[in-house]
């Protein structure tokens, strides 16, 4: 009897493998790729200025003792338009937000902030996705919480909702 069971073992393992692969196929596609830089110092980056009088975002402006948000977005991105109102409200509550616009241009961004508000302290265009890659960001919108020493505390992936806004404010308070 014992020998009989062992003979069936490869078949059982094969069926288990197939069942696993089948379940894997049924799983919804899309894998959230979190940045590995959370907990580390923010990477060096610079951006190209967009609006006259508004400085471009750059890594050198962090580490000034003031925690703030870093929002990676684009004028062509629909969820970014959806979260803009929430970001403007965060700004009204005293939250500092620096913006990085990826694959964007000055005209489109000028129109975007005219229509959706400009919640940004600093705003710049990311040339060739260099800043986005340096952050390990895989899409827009994403929002990073940076503490006063320039350390990345948290990465929020997707549009910032009202609940997310409260969470981000709590983190910034805590980082102070």
């Amino acid at each position, binding site marked *: 009897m014992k020998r009989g069971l062992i003979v069936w073992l490869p078949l059982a393992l094969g069926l288990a493998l197939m069942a696993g692969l089948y379940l894997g196929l049924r799983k919804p*596609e899309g*894998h959230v790729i979190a940045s590995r830089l959370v907990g580390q110092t923010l990477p060096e980056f610079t951006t190209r200025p967009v609006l006259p009088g508004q400085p471009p975002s750059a890594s050198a402006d962090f580490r000034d003792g003031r925690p703030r948000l870093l929002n990676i977005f684009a004028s062509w991105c629909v969820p970014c338009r959806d979260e803009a109102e929430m970001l403007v409200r965060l700004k009204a509550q005293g939250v500092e937000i620096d913006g990085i616009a*990826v694959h964007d241009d000055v005209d489109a961004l000028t129109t975007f902030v005219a229509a959706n508000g400009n919640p940004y302290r600093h705003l710049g265009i990311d040339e060739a*996705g*260099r800043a986005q*890659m340096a952050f*390990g960001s895989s*899409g827009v919108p994403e929002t990073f919480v940076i503490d006063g020493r320039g350390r990345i505390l948290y990465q929020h992936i997707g549009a910032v909702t009202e609940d997310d806004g409260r969470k981000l404010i709590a983190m910034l308070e805590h980082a102070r």
Partner: protein
Amino acid sequence: MIAPLVFAAALAAAPAAAIPADPPDYAQVALADPAKEAQAAALMDTIRCVVCQGQPISGSNADLAADMRRMVRERIARGDSPEQVRAWLVGRYGDWISFSPRMRTATAPLWLVPLGALAGGLALVARRLRRRSTR
């Protein structure tokens, strides 16, 4: 993958006589040095596009994949080794971005499970053969 590159190279080359050439956009244009381009191309075939996820960056039309191809070629041209560039990307996006996973505790089963299955199968066959010969 080759056809768009040739096309892009043709586009880049055609107006060169008429207007001063812009620096080539390495997202679409091969490096001039064939040895370095071969290194870059091999690396790009094993870096997963984080937008389309099933495709390598060499075969993806996503903007971010183009950015990664540009970055890969620029770094290889500057003298970085393909593994240095891979490590830079893995340090930001995790093992998931590489189609050529590194051996570590979490990824060890990728190599050990097939070896274990082979060993188990051989043991079963050996037992069966031994029993048959002693009968």
